């Protein structure tokens, strides 16, 4: 047994991930040596994940407000008003380290955690998305990780009963030892029925709900040491195990209970479990919390206070109930077969008091646990600016047709059907647009509103220039929403970076955040929730900086949503936005020349906004028949994707820039869209309108046939393109390449 009152040694402090000066801060705060349970509580609250101690200072600069924002960062999830008395509740969160250690459970519990964040606020989840980054395909662990992560995401979401509607999957050797699993959940609630974590009222019952507490997930890597454990009990895995069935019951029971008016405050037990949920409820409400651990439903016997406070067992909730409503609440949880226990009450002492077997195991100031967490202004250096690569200095070693086929069949561009067919993307009957398009489109209830949902980031750009890369990630999310006919409303950001104690990685974080902030401010696209994952590195080498942006837009009438498939033969293809043929940090450069150098394409936010408004108008007035945003891979990949989505080919006849053809075709200039219109007369009218509004526009070709033809090259059959596009991932996963 571990003893609660033990001598706190420097070793013990280090094993809890606390720095000596952080321990001094603890001594100063409480005026004595902490007990073991208290040390554990501090380490849980003050770690990077919970305290944002390295990023907090910089996150403050992000725009978080807009008239439609109901709740910004700081709650379980962000909330925006989408009209008709409805709110959209959403957040994205990472589960990177657990997914590398145990891909199925790591990914599954990542999905479970983010779903809980959303329904904790009273919202019924209607969709999930994800952003996955794996190591190089030829790395020996990659196939196993892809297989496990995808099965885990599907295994949890499918059983829980929420459609997985979109996402992105990329491969790069910099993720070899540290994959990224970012999951986003989106839910719908009534604007007047949102639930928060803030406790109110003294003496109100604190109720524990859901699954029982076990020894899983205790303190991750820092505390698996047997040195504290005289009985040398077997080490438990630090990765939690998910039970989607329990989560589904928890969802239904929580939503049913919320309808009774019994719930004052609610907080899910995620990272740092009971500790973090109880402290947040108390601290936000300026109340103390007293818990009696003898009342906590446990899966195993003889759990210590330390273990119970740090367990990360899944599918658990903490609530503050209105007094007198306990019986009613209990009946609902018994009906759903879940545990229900009154484990404490709110107090007016502002202390966080933990009792077990009649003894006080911890007694700490509750506000300071959160507010007085260390805050670091870590040293950082700006990533050196890279030279801009002039298009005419880079020759193409292959024909443009060959380059296109190679790109379409490359790991990052190849169809991810093998992945999304393992996710139930059709349940609930509201998935208007399937995975594979720009943004997923999901109808809200029986309509007429819809949501446009997307997750985006181009890590190659963020590595080359964190500020521009951060801007671009937001701009691409914005563009994807515009392309399906949505109005971009807000984002959730999931910032995945290396070790913040290294100034170069800290610099990536700082400048990406600044870039995100600049784009959000200019595009009126505030951040309402987010998550920071640092220390993503192996053997001293960090991952590519990867600030994943989850974007949400509103579609007023979902029956008018736009998609990227060509609609008919003989339609005119227009390119909106300025093209100079930017090859620096492009997919073409990486895939064809195996180079990742050069400055990434800059994002002109004013043009981004103007072009978006122009495209939105073309969708709204029925002029556009298909719309696709351009991102990496450039115009040629964009046209190919539109052709494959429809089975109708195209001929690109004119290129917009005066530079080399491959630069015009594969350059990644930002702020661009491909739009088709019915005929030449319509095209002329649109071109005239664009020129009058000072919007760059080019007529580049015409739809038709079963081939895609690039200027001055032989036609490529759509079958060839489709084969390249669809074959790579299934063949790779079958071990055939």
């Amino acid at each position, binding site marked *: 047994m571990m003893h609660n009152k033990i001598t706190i040694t420097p070793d013990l402090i280090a094993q809890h991930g606390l720095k000596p000066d952080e321990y001094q801060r603890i001594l100063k705060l409480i005026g004595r040596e902490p007990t073991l349970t208290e040390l554990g509580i501090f380490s849980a609250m003050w770690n990077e994940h919970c305290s944002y101690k390295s990023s907090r200072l910089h996150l403050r600069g992000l725009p978080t407000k807009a008239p439609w924002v109901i709740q910004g960062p700081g709650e379980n999830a962000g909330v925006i008003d989408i009209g008709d008395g409805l709110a959209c509740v959403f957040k994205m969160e990472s589960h990177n380290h657990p997914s590398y250690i145990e891909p199925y459970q790591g990914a599954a519990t990542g999905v479970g955690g983010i779903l809980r964040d959303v329904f904790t606020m009273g919202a019924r989840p209607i969709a999930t998305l994800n952003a996955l980054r794996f190591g190089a395909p030829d790395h020996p662990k990659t196939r196993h990780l892809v297989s496990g992560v995808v099965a885990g995401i599907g295994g949890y979401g499918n*059983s829980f009963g929420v459609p997985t509607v979109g996402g992105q999957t990329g491969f790069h050797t910099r993720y070899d030892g540290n994959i990224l699993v970012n999951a986003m959940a989106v839910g719908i609630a009534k604007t007047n029925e949102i639930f928060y974590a803030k406790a109110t009222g003294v003496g109100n019952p604190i109720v524990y709900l859901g699954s029982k507490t076990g020894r899983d997930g205790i303190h991750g890597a820092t505390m698996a040491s047997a040195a504290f454990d005289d009985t040398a009990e077997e080490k438990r895995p630090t990765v939690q195990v998910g039970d989607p069935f329990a989560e589904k019951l928890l969802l239904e029971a929580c939503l049913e209970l919320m309808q009774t008016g019994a719930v004052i405050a609610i907080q899910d037990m995620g990272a740092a479990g009971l500790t973090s949920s109880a402290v947040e409820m108390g601290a936000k409400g300026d109340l103390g919390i007293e818990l009696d651990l003898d009342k906590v439903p446990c899966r195993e016997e003889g759990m210590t206070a330390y273990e119970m406070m740090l367990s990360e067992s899944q599918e658990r909730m903490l609530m503050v109930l209105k007094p007198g409503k306990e019986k009613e609440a209990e009946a609902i949880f018994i009906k759903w077969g879940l545990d229900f226990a009154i484990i404490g009450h709110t107090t007016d002492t502002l202390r966080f008091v933990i009792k077990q077997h009649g003894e006080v195991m911890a007694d700490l100031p509750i506000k300071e646990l959160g507010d007085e967490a260390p805050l670091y202004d870590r040293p950082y250096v700006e990533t050196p600016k890279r030279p801009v690569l002039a298009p005419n200095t880079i020759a193409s070693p292959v024909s443009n047709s060959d380059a296109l086929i190679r790109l379409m069949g490359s790991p990052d561009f190849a169809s991810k059907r093998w992945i999304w*067919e393992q996710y139930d993307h059709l349940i609930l009957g509201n998935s208007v647009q399937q995975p594979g398009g720009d943004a997923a489109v999901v109808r809200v209830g029986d309509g007429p509103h819809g949501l446009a949902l997307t997750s985006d980031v181009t890590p190659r750009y963020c590595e080359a220039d964190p500020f521009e890369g951060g801007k671009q990630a937001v701009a691409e999310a914005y563009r994807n929403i515009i392309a399906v006919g949505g109005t971009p409303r807000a984002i959730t950001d999931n910032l995945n970076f290396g070790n913040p104690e290294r100034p170069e990685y800290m610099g990536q974080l700082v400048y990406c955040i600044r870039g995100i902030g600049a784009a959000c401010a200019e595009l009126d696209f505030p951040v309402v929730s987010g998550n920071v994952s640092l220390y993503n590195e192996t053997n001293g080498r960090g991952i590519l900086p990867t600030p994943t942006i989850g974007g949400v837009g509103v579609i007023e009438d979902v029956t008018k949503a736009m998609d990227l498939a060509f609609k008919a033969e003989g339609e005119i293809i227009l390119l909106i936005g300025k093209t100079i043929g930017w090859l620096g940090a492009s997919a073409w450069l990486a895939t064809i020349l195996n180079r990742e150098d050069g400055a990434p394409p800059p994002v002109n936010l004013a043009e981004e906004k103007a072009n978006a408004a122009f495209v939105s108008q073309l969708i709204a007035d029925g002029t556009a028949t298909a719309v696709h945003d351009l991102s990496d891979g450039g115009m040629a990949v964009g046209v190919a994707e539109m052709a494959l989505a429809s089975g109708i080919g195209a001929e690109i006849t004119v290129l917009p820039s005066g530079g080399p053809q491959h630069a015009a075709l594969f350059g990644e200039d930002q702020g661009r869209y491909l739009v088709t219109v019915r005929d030449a007369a319509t095209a002329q009218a649109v071109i005239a309108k664009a020129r009058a509004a000072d919007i760059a526009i080019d007529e580049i070709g015409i739809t038709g046939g079963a081939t895609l033809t690039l200027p001055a090259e032989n036609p490529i059959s759509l079958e060839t393109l489709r084969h390249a596009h669809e074959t790579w991932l299934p063949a790779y996963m079958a071990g055939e390449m």
Partner: protein
Amino acid sequence: MKSAVITFPGSNREGDVIRALHHASGVAPMKIWHQDHTLPHGTDLVVLPGGFSYGDYLRCGAIASRAPVMDAVRAHAAKGGLVLGICNGFQILVESGLLPGVLMRNAGLKFICKMQHLKVGRTDTPFTSAYTKDQIIKVAIAHGEGNYVADPDTITALESEGRVAFRYCDAEGDTIKGNPNGSINAIAGIYSEKLNVLGMMPHPENLIETLVGGIDGRGLFASVTAFKGAA
């Protein structure tokens, strides 16, 4: 037509089938809890919806098939009442003995969610009168364990008695190329001997609107609605 949809712990497509029935009949179905011992008086159709009842723990459908309400469902079926089990509902029907055979893991060992073509069998049943024989329809599948298996005698009986309700096929009707999960004879759904119990893995309830994938699933709900409407 009075229909009732049962919710088991872990059911998750009950809302989808409620919507489809409501859409087809203009009347919202009744919701039944798995702990109930009786069905509402006058129930014509009982639906066991898709999902992961009891998390698919033990075996898909095995625990739900022992729920109190299943005795009432068996009695309803014995009297000739209509029973429809979709996906997990089909798994529960085979576990409860109302239909023969078992649903094994998909041949590819992976969960599959996609649009899938089916070939409609006979159309003189309460569930398929709105379709034409051998009509190819497009509906959704979403399952990890939909590989229908039964002993040779059972398969012979199902085939000779015309009890294969739907077969998987491709867009051209090829049941070999279009079989997604390895089911014997590409069986996607089967009837009981009296044709009043239908179990099927695909999800017609997700294909009732042009905006969301298509309307090929409507026929099934139109059929059951018309059947009792006429009686």
